[in-house]
């Protein structure tokens, strides 16, 4: 396919851009992050990416499980629960006057 159509930006992806993108992805992966000496191959990065996403999904599953168990042991209306919620919302502050309700 020729790249004669212009329209939305770069007409051809350069090798440098590919390398750059793979390197950026590599920076996000805990397994490969510290390998500054040699850039990992693209397929290695892809593989680690898959593994990492799977492990993150699994973590969300586990945390959801734990959380649902914990929530079922505490009455939502108790002062204890509201203390926890306040603590939580203070740990993650958002600008009050922009808050959505």
């Amino acid at each position, binding site marked *: 396919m020729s790249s004669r159509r212009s329209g*939305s930006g770069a007409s051809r992806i350069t090798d440098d851009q590919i390398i750059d993108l793979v390197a950026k992805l590599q920076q996000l992966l805990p397994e490969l992050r510290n390998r500054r000496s040699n850039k990992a191959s693209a397929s290695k990065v892809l593989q680690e*990416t898959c593994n990492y996403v799977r492990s993150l999904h699994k*973590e969300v599953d586990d945390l959801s499980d734990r959380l649902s168990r914990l929530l079922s042991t505490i009455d939502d209306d108790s002062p204890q629960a509201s203390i*926890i919620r306040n603590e939580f919302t203070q740990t993650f502050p*958002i600008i009050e006057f922009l*808050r*959505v309700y």
Partner: protein
Amino acid sequence: MSPSQQPTSTNPSSLKNQFAHRFIRALKTLNHTKTGAAHDHNQMYRRSIRVKIASYTAMASVVGSRRAWSRAVLWKIIKRSRNQGLLLRKRKRRNPNPKREDFNPFRNSGQELKLRKLVPGAETMDSWCLMGETADYIKCLVAQVEVMKTLVDLYSIT
């Protein structure tokens, strides 16, 4: 209910904060009444699924329509809540970069297919977009996990 006016940049702390608020709000609406000892495994399992869905939905709604993966997640939730059968027309988003269809440096890599299955909405996008979406998706997953860990720790103290 108007959408939040706070800029949803990819600033990680802003992402976490907004996710935290939406998530805790969603959790409040979930039914967590105690039914004696939770011996019913099926019920516990269903509760856990609801928390998980609340978590992914909260994060996807913070990101909103900016990303293909978040659109895919929200769309899936909408479809689910409309009970599939009623939805007649599936809205297909046109590929914004049709010229890049031939861009496939990982053509022979089976890993790319695996990745497409893991990232929501990634099945049909070109490889270039896939990389960008994956990076954003990972950042959001990490934020999601951190916030959930904090909440679990808080509830565990008591």
